[in-house]
């Protein structure tokens, strides 16, 4: 397991409410516990999600508002004080003018001066919004001189991604903040219900798959 470096400021850039919870909430909680402020830029409100609760309690039209509240709750649970909703629409990120995304990301970076950025690994993050977000983050950071450029830690989970980009070079043990992580995931009730039914129970019972999923988070350092 790798030791988490102390950062000045962490910027998380992900497209959907709940991406942060499933992908990096343990790491986010650990940074905040370590006194590092975290800014989370969430591009969309997950307007086109298929999960509407079980049984469904949301409609296609009420889902954005519900997910906005879930996102705000998750941010509160994690201690994120700077949550920014960028107003893009779910499923459309790859069709936007990439320069607009780069400008949005650049202005946040110039404001908060992150020493670490967390996003998706372009090409290895399954959902087109994930890949497009990661690609725009990479292009944004490429414009910053190497000496001033924050590190970029990427989330990848496409099948077989290790064969192409190798093993994750960063593996964190986030078991100390496992409870916070589970609470963050469960904040996204409309999305998490199906996936994490009985998750808490299984965690307490020591189910290996659930333990691994909750207790460890892995990232690939992007090599510019």
């Amino acid at each position, binding site marked *: 397991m790798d030791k988490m470096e102390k950062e000045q400021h962490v910027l998380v850039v992900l497209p959907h409410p709940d991406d942060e919870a499933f992908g990096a909430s343990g790491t986010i909680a650990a940074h905040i516990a370590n006194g590092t402020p975290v800014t989370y830029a969430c591009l969309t409100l997950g307007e086109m999600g298929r*999960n509407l609760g079980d049984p*469904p309690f949301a409609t296609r*039209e*009420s889902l954005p508002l519900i997910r906005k509240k879930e996102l705000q709750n998750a941010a509160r649970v994690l201690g994120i004080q700077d949550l920014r909703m960028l107003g893009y629409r779910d499923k459309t990120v790859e069709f936007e003018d990439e320069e607009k995304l780069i400008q949005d990301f650049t202005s946040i970076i110039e404001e908060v001066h992150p020493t670490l950025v967390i996003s998706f690994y372009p090409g290895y993050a399954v959902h087109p919004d994930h890949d497009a977000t990661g690609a725009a983050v990479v292009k944004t950071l490429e414009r910053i001189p190497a000496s001033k450029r924050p590190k970029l830690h990427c989330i990848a989970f496409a099948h077989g991604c290790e064969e192409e980009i190798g093993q994750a070079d960063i593996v964190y043990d986030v078991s100390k903040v496992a409870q916070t992580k589970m609470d963050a995931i469960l904040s996204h009730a409309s999305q998490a219900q*199906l996936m994490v039914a009985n998750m808490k129970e299984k965690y307490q019972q020591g189910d290996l798959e659930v333990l691994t999923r909750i207790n460890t988070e892995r990232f690939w350092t992007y090599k510019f």
Partner: protein
Amino acid sequence: MEPVIVETVQKEIDKNANQEVYLHLETTAGAYASHFDEKVFSSGAYIRNALVQYERGKIAGTGPSYRVGLKTQIGWIYAEGITHFEVDSDGRLLLAGHDYQGKLAVCLEISLKPFE
């Protein structure tokens, strides 16, 4: 939303006929369909805020899932697998088909004002 009541839905369809309405039509297997099961082909389509006018519309089927067809002057609008409906606080007719896990599979919505 509640399970389709044919008479209620039909009344709402009739109410919106012969005038310009905004339409949201969507079908999806989900962006993760192939990721979770490689035998499933990921596909989907949606159109949001199509401005249309239909001259007749009908909900058909014996349930629990139904089909809806709207006949326009020069074409058709069609959705299959509709299980639930709601007339929301803005008076919009929301029709959706939820799969066996409650996930959205198809959606047809009619509104007199543009969707956000």
